[in-house]
């Protein structure tokens, strides 16, 4: 496997070129570059409709210096599966000799909501492909609407805080666990601040020989309301508060990684969810006294999921 030394990583082919139209401070291109560094072989990329897709492929330009395809919103997994199926057919007949890896990048709306069926189907069928969710916790491309990945209390343009509303009412869907329940060879959560952890997990995902799923926390300055030079700090804080634990599940075996492993081992401190809430404008309204119970609920749910994860990692 490729060395993770920075001097070696910088020699890898540039598959996503600069000059794309993502917002300043967007985490998506950072995550994608880290994931693509995990493939030693050629990679074919598919994108579900979303920020990443519209920002990298405005005709007659493309930011992709590797085979690329986009078809629609809710079918990224099937699009990627089609490439892998064609590869199997053409490789078998000797029409393609080289090894090619396959990856689909999709936002949380395209993954947790509209694309869940196609994702589940592709994972169950065992296509040799990696599916990466760039999770910025709302429909950012259409202007910050709530998705089932949006956390409780968050302001979005379809879950406004108001006199009788504290923002989004529900906890986020735990999609990573749903993917674990598919019993696929590799599932992980990553965050772009820990590039070593992300590239390592991408390497494992590309080399697992079957379907793999990576859920990546993708801080969004526009949607979360923070300054665009704070993206990586925000990603780190998500892990330090255990709002977004780093872990992997290899053939069903859970393991905490990075800062999350250190927190579980008592080598680092678990920060309060309040730090997360005060760092972003989307939670600003929660600081009113009347929404204090929502913050308590949020902390309790983060603790419950975190403690469950620790137990799972001890199995």
């Amino acid at each position: 496997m490729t060395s993770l030394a920075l001097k070696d990583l910088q020699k890898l082919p540039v598959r996503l070129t600069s000059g794309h139209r993502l917002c300043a401070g967007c985490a998506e291109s950072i995550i994608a570059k880290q994931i693509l560094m995990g493939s030693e072989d050629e990679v074919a990329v598919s994108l579900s409709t979303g920020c990443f897709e519209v920002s990298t492929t405005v005709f007659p330009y493309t930011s992709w210096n590797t085979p690329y395809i986009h078809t629609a919103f809710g079918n990224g997994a099937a699009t990627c599966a089609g490439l892998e199926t064609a590869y199997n057919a053409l490789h078998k007949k000797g029409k393609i000799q080289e090894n090619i890896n396959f990856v689909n990048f999709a936002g949380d709306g395209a993954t947790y909501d509209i694309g869940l069926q196609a994702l589940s189907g592709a994972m169950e069928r065992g296509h040799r492909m990696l599916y990466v969710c760039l999770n910025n916790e709302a429909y950012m491309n259409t202007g910050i609407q709530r998705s089932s990945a949006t956390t409780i209390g968050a302001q979005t343009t379809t879950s406004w805080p108001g006199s009788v509303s504290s923002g989004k009412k529900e906890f986020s869907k735990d999609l990573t666990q749903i993917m674990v329940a598919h019993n696929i060879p590799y599932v992980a959560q990553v965050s772009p601040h820990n590039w070593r952890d992300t590239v390592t997990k991408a390497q494992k995902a590309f080399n697992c020989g079957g379907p793999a799923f990576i859920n990546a926390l993708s801080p969004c300055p526009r949607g979360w309301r923070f300054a665009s030079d704070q993206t990586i700090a925000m990603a780190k804080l998500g892990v330090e508060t255990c709002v977004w634990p780093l872990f992997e599940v290899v053939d069903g075996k859970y393991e905490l990684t990075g800062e999350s492993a250190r927190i579980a081992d008592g080598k680092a401190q678990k920060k309060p969810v309040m730090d997360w809430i005060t760092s972003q404008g989307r939670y600003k309204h929660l600081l009113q006294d009347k929404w204090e119970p929502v913050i308590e609920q949020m902390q309790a749910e983060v603790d419950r999921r975190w403690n469950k994860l620790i137990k799972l990692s001890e199995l």
Partner: protein
Amino acid sequence: MPQDIAINGDNAVALAWKQIDPDVCAAYPITPQTIIVEKFAEYVANAEVSTEFVCVESEHSALTLCTSSASAGARTFTATASQGLAYMWEMLPITAAMRVPLIMAVANRAVSGPININNDHGDAMAARDCGWLMLFSENVQEAYDMSIVAPRIAEHHSVQLPCMVNLDGFVLTHAIERMTMVDTQDVKNFVGEHQPLYPLLDTKHPVSHGNMDGPDYYYPHKYQSVQAMLKALEVTREVFKEFKDLTGREYHLVEEYRCDDAEYVVVVLGSSFGTMKATVDMLRESGIKVGCAMPRIFRPWPMEDLAKMMEGKKAVIVFDKHLSIGSYGPMFPEVVAAASDLEKLPKMYNVIYGLGGADATVAGFEKSLKAVVDGKAEKIHYLGVRL
């Protein structure tokens, strides 16, 4: 030697695809198409084909997987019907705009609601504006033959469009008819090796498929599809000629039956063309000069051939097995448009029939046509509807 066999429409389509031996097939079960995929799965299970066969979780994924597979350079086919085609709808114009020549058999069935599994053309007609080539078949032989010619038209480098091969649900899919097979080696030679343009898995020459267009490119790209459709008329004629040289069976953009000296002509699609021929024969015996025609290819619309056929006729009666509720049947305005440049415009009538599997009989057709001849027909007539 070409062999005569007894086979139903679905199995005939599956047989054609077995002989072609495509790279990829992804499909989802739906009546009355299911036999095609079941039979093909049997060929896969016994290594009678080398195809990568994927049982997807929905029709949306079926067409998606086939679209990206075809973009990757694999010869790809699928099959569906009714709700399945409706569920694919989002992908239909995308597949066409990506200019991938995949083939889809459509076992024409009524679209819900109310839910109904029987034949009409509601599914295909709702897909007619999506940019796909559309071939129709009158009988099992034609469903088989169209399956063999389809890849030649779709994959032609000046066409590069997906193609639907339509066959009427149950009437053809489940009816066993006598059919002449083409020798497998002849099929393979006729269809030839797939030569994809800009295949996505050519990593030495990376290409981006499915980019976003602003207004400055969207419209010109649509116009390119228009030009490909026009080219397809020419290509289809050439491919039909080659197919005739191979099999002796002759096909045209518009099939005509006793039209030459007819005063009245019927335009009808699919299996009802056969029923209409029998009706024409009966009416001819009683001295009524009537003929009938079927657009073999519905997209591109064979405007000129139809206009030529309608020249000098007293009346044209368009039989539609679907209804654009609040307007006419979907084929009627298109036939009127085809006739619009004729020096003398024939009287134009529309007959709606056979919705959701309602009877399409010689007696019913005869009654509708006699009403036209007697000057008693309404502009639009709902044949056989029970009030």
